[in-house]
């Protein structure tokens, strides 16, 4: 395993752990959502690192390239294709979450999770 891959794997692990930490311990809902987007980013980074080939080339077949040389040296493109989908899904999920937060802020007047997303039976007392 190349050391580039090791560095990337360490980064992705750190991002996932930061995200999980934010999910439990951060109270502000927008920061919580930012933290959760780091989990998604870490997972993407991990999957891209799978396809990497040390000393390889970009998996795009240019005119004039020898096909067998290309097959032996190109990186593995399947994970890249998967990550493309996953990035877009992550962005759309984040947008929907932020939209819901904006609606709920109008009702509660605060961004604290303890107030905004408390138990359903306790929500009546917080509601303005």
């Amino acid at each position, binding site marked *: 395993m190349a050391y580039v891959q090791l560095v990337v794997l360490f980064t992705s692990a750190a991002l*996932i752990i930061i*995200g*999980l930490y934010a*999910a439990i311990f951060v109270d502000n809902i927008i920061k*919580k*959502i930012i933290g*959760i*987007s780091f*989990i*998604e980013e*870490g*997972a*993407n980074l*991990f*999957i891209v690192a*799978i396809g990497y080939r040390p000393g390889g080339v970009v998996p795009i077949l240019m005119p004039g390239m020898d096909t067998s040389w290309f097959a032996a040296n190109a990186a*593995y493109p*399947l*994970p890249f294709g*998967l990550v493309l*989908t*996953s990035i877009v*899904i*992550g962005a*759309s*999920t*984040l947008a*929907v*979450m932020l939209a*819901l*937060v904006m*609606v*709920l802020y109008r009702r509660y007047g605060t961004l604290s999770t303890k107030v*905004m*997303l408390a138990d*359903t039976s306790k*929500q009546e007392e917080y509601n303005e």
Partner: protein
Amino acid sequence: MNELIPLMVIVPLMAALLISAFSKFNKITKIFAFVVAICLPIIPLASNYGLHYFGGYAPIMDNVTNVMFHPAITYSFTFLQQIFIAMVGLLTFLVIFIYLNKYKEVSGPYLFLLFLGTAAVTAMLLTDDIFHMFVFFEILALAQVGIVAASSIDYSYEMALKYMILGSIGSPIMLLGIGFLLALTGSVNVTDIAAAVHNGLVNVTSPVFLMSLALIFFGWLYASGLPPFHTIKSGIYSKAEPHGAALLQSFTVISMISIVLIMFRIYSSLPIFEVLIVFFSILAMVLGVSLALTQTDFRRMIGFLAVGELGFIGLGIGLGTQFAITAGLFQALNEIMITALLFIGFGAIVNATNEVDTRKLGGLLAYHPKVGIMLLIGGMAMAGVPPLSGFQSKLMLVQASLSCGFPELSILAIMVSIATFVVFIKTFYAMFLRPKPNDLEVEGKEVPRSMIFAMGVLLIIIILLGLFPDAVTSGISNFVGGIL
């Protein structure tokens, strides 16, 4: 005709897009949605069994190792897929029928979400590609959030946001697990991965393989609402509109079985896999039913009951024999219908009384006798009273666990059934039989005809399946024999 296989996903998907684009033409949208909804259960019944390769890339045989590779996204359509897709199609039809009858002005986005969810679960059932399944799993989560947020019940936005935040932890974790599998095998096709595992190309005792099991398993827990996600699942059921909740629980059941079948094909050689499934199923049954006993909001109560019933499906699959898996899948089929019946029926009561607290209800049998009788039969089917369909599947499960040498599980399953019965009878008494409280107004409010029609259709299927279970179980048993 094998060309119909991709149409099962394409038709609801295209219908969803067209309806949301042209939703200002109210009349045309209504007719179009109705026609598409009728087509949904018919397409799988008219289609032949077989495989469909997208793009026409047929499998390649590697001459050196004699292993097949699947370069295309593959849809496989067998009896199991047929029966479940037809059932979801029927349920979607009934839900859309209720919706179209209830509102004069239809909302395009809501119909869009309903069709999108149906397309997503259909694709999850059909697909043989683990990443394709993940993509539709995410789309399904978005559709579920939309259905919850679109309801007019108090605090539905809060519940939708909670579900979404939990989901955006659950699904990247599952993606990570898929990444581990991809790193080990270099493929996302389930058949290829299973072949690599069974041919010994992958070391099944390596920590990476076990890690991928842990991560995908966590994603499965989120998808199916087993503990620790039972509270949020019951919450979203109680905050959606009743017909929406009926569809949501079918989405949950189907995503649960489609993911667990894929996991079973890959990880069945690991003994810990079955231990984990049985452990979480027991937890779901115990927590779900004991929390349902203490609820006073009856929608929340059915939500917890639905989660408790999911434990039976997991139990059947966790036992791992052919008979047990057949019983679990049959239980899944029954649960889709029975829980949908209960959600629609209790939703009719909410419609007629605007009250969800069982303590403030009573004496409704005199006003809504049809709904009451149908709900009673549905609840009995859920608790496993003969000769209804719930009884057949639960009997099979009890027999299966006895023949596997786990009599404790049989006792537990019977106890959970009895507790379900207690929950149901308690609620039925409080709502229908006890004298009517003075401040409850029920005069002059009718239950919509479409709801009674939908309940009738579901009830007929429940009774027929209870009388002739072999019509379904023999086909499911063949399918299970194929994947074992």
